[in-house]
């Protein structure tokens, strides 16, 4: 039996229960406090402290024995709660819920400076009640007879670009990447088998140059909240996890973990800019509500169409390589010049795992295609670009086929090889969501003898790399190739900080040294299939996007100037062992 713990459904496919407030209240009612595999610390036992925050509550705590505390908020009557505490060097951390409510606090105290950062946490604060909300208050522990400190822990971008492997005392293993100052990307190795990575909005708070606080909320998924303090030198963490898992069971535990440093990606902010929270919590001129933050909610906003709706919209409007104002045109702002090399040529692309495709290229933008067994030719609009000498990428839609296929094809005339990302619709979850098959094969044409055995092949050479793409003025993103089967994309803010981030399944094919053909699927997002041919010599990519939505089916050109942003050393985590599981 396979030992790699692949889930029955990946995180973005799990239909998490929409828990009601009453259900959540019932699940919280019996909670005495957080659990922990590691022994709780008694660092606060017997103490009474008052935490003063700048724009938040004043919290008076009295810590008793047996992990019980009493809390008075803003001078109100005290309530009792069970709590857990852990320490990491000079940091004391504790967490508790408040009985009879759906909220609680998790608090980080630097015992050297008496500075405190307070995270107020609550359920039922968003339309999806299970999604944990948070508000952060900065302050200090009052010291009788001493003036209040002026320094504070601060939001920061100093964690941006880092990546760690973490192993908690629970046994949970993750790869966690912070390529954004507002989001993070995580690979669940032990819970989900490490096949795909996922993203969540995150906070990064600087305690000092060595110690930082990180949070993540698994929005669009379970809504689970994770917070930890990490020591970047010792690579140790202490933190809390709060939320409901896929079976709606409460996870509320403190953890201690150790990790490995995986590398550092480039940052693109101006030198000297160390500010955090680059994404404003509310729109210009609006006062953010408590806990407000910008959350990318692609699943909520994507159109979810049936096969009948897809068929109808494709019949109504199908567009291939629209002019500058057409669908997806923004992504083609930095396209290189198209090639007309194919014009007038005839060839057959003989795939190993799909019917051969015959082509007649009428001119630089029109081709005719047919499957080898067909008698009729079908006209299609195409565009082609020569990324490296002898290697041409071209794409076209296959009008008339049942699943409205689109082909993004790299033809390598030096080797006589072809690789096609065959996009198609009518996929199992939502009919407008693209699926993809990767087709390998050879080129048959006059004057070219193709190889018998050689093929382009899937590669892991891109895994761990980060590459930024500037598609057009104001449209800059970065890909983080975080697993052999998924990538994440990060959108830069106007200050060139990493902002919103999301991820999807992906694959990478090596065409030549320094030339990689890759795709990603924007599953549970907007259904797009993105394909690009990345030239690491010229640092330019070219490709095509394939998308179906309420506005129709489209294939559009993609072209960007790229920059290498660094690389994480992570392939060792994806090696298959002889026992059949990944490391």
């Amino acid at each position: 039996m396979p030992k790699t713990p692949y889930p029955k459904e990946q995180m973005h496919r799990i239909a998490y229960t929409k828990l009601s407030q009453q259900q959540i209240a019932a699940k919280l009612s019996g909670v005495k406090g957080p659990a922990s595999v590691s022994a709780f610390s008694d660092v606060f036992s017997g103490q009474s402290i008052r935490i003063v925050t700048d724009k938040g509550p004043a919290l008076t705590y009295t810590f008793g024995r047996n992990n019980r505390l009493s809390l008075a908020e803003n001078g109100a009557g005290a309530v009792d709660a069970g709590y857990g505490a852990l320490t990491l060097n000079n940091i004391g951390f504790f967490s508790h819920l408040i009985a009879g409510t759906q909220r609680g606090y998790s608090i980080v105290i630097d015992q050297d400076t008496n500075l405190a950062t307070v995270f107020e946490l609550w359920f039922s604060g968003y339309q999806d009640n299970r999604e944990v909300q948070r508000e952060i208050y900065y302050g200090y522990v009052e010291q009788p007879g001493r003036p209040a400190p002026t320094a504070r822990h601060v939001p920061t971008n100093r964690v941006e670009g880092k990546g760690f492997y973490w192993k908690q005392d629970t046994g949970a293993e993750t790869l966690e990447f912070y390529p954004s100052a507002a989001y993070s990307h995580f690979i669940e190795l032990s819970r989900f088998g490490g096949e795909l990575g996922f993203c969540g909005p995150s906070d990064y708070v600087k305690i000092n140059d060595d110690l930082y606080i990180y949070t993540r909320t698994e929005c669009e998924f379970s809504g689970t909240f994770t917070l930890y303090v990490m020591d970047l030198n010792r690579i140790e963490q202490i933190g809390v996890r709060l939320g409901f898992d896929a079976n709606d069971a409460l996870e509320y535990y403190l953890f201690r973990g150790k990790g490995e440093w995986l590398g550092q990606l480039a940052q693109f902010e101006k030198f000297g800019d160390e500010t955090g929270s680059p994404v404003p919590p509310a729109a210009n001129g609006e006062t953010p509500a408590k806990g407000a933050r910008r959350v990318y909610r692609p699943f909520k906003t994507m159109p979810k169409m049936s096969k009948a709706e897809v068929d109808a919209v494709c019949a109504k409007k199908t567009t291939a390589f629209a002019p500058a104002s057409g669908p997806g045109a923004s992504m083609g702002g930095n396209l290189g010049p198209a090639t007309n090399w194919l014009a007038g040529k005839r060839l057959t692309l003989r795939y190993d795992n799909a019917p051969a495709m015959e082509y007649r290229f009428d001119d630089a933008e029109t081709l005719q295609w047919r499957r080898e067994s067909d008698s009729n030719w079908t006209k299609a609009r195409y565009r082609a670009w020569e990324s490296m000498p002898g290697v041409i990428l071209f794409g076209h839609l296959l009008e008339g086929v049942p699943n409205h296929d689109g082909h993004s094809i790299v033809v390598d005339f030096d080797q006589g090889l072809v690789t096609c990302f065959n996009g198609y619709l009518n996929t199992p979850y939502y009919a407008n969501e693209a699926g993809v098959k990767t087709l390998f094969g050879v080129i048959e044409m006059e004057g070219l003898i193709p190889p018998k055995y050689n093929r382009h092949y899937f590669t892991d050479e891109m895994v761990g790399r980060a590459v930024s793409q500037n598609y057009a003025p104001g449209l800059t993103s970065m890909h983080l190739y975080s697993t052999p089967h998924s990538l994440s994309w990060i959108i830069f803010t106007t200050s060139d900080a990493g902002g919103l981030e999301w991820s999807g399944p992906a694959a990478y094919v090596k065409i030549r040294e320094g030339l990689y053909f890759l795709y990603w699927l924007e599953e549970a997002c907007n259904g797009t299939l993105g394909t690009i041919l990345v030239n690491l010599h010229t640092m330019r990519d070219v490709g095509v996007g394939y998308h179906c939505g309420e506005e129709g089916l489209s294939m559009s050109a993609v072209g960007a100037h790229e920059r290498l942003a660094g690389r994480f050393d992570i392939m060792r985590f994806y090696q298959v062992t002889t026992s059949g599981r990944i490391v």
Partner: protein
Amino acid sequence: MKENANSTRRSFLKSGLVLAPLTAVGPPRVLADDGLKARLARLEDEAAIGKLHQAWLRQINSGASDALLSMFTAQGFAFGHTVRNIAADQAGEPDAIAVEPNGKSAAGRFHCAIEIEDAIPQDCTLARMAHAQGGGFVRRTWRGVLKVEYVKARGAWTIARVELVSV
């Protein structure tokens, strides 16, 4: 041309001539045909208009109302763009204010650098995400000349018309 409906700032109008609410009090006109007094009056008018221009710029740059901006008429320049900032172009020609001999109207020419903003169409995931995080626009700086017409009524100078022309 498409206006940025989501903009919280102001856009050039396609056309329009609206009296500006800003005014600046000028000196009482001296009837005596005394060269020195006339020159003094002209200098005081120019100074008043200069102050009016600076006040107008401050209002623009601090987020003026659309009503204030409605005085713009742009001739083949900046249509459909959102204006973020107007600053004096130190590399351009000096400001010029010419008061008519009757002292009732004046014209100003101000070389300036105008920061404009264009929204990126939300036609792809990247653009939608950029908008979702408060971005999704391109800013550029254009150099041009503000041609401003002033009129004096009840002793106060008022902006009658502002035209932006390319250099």
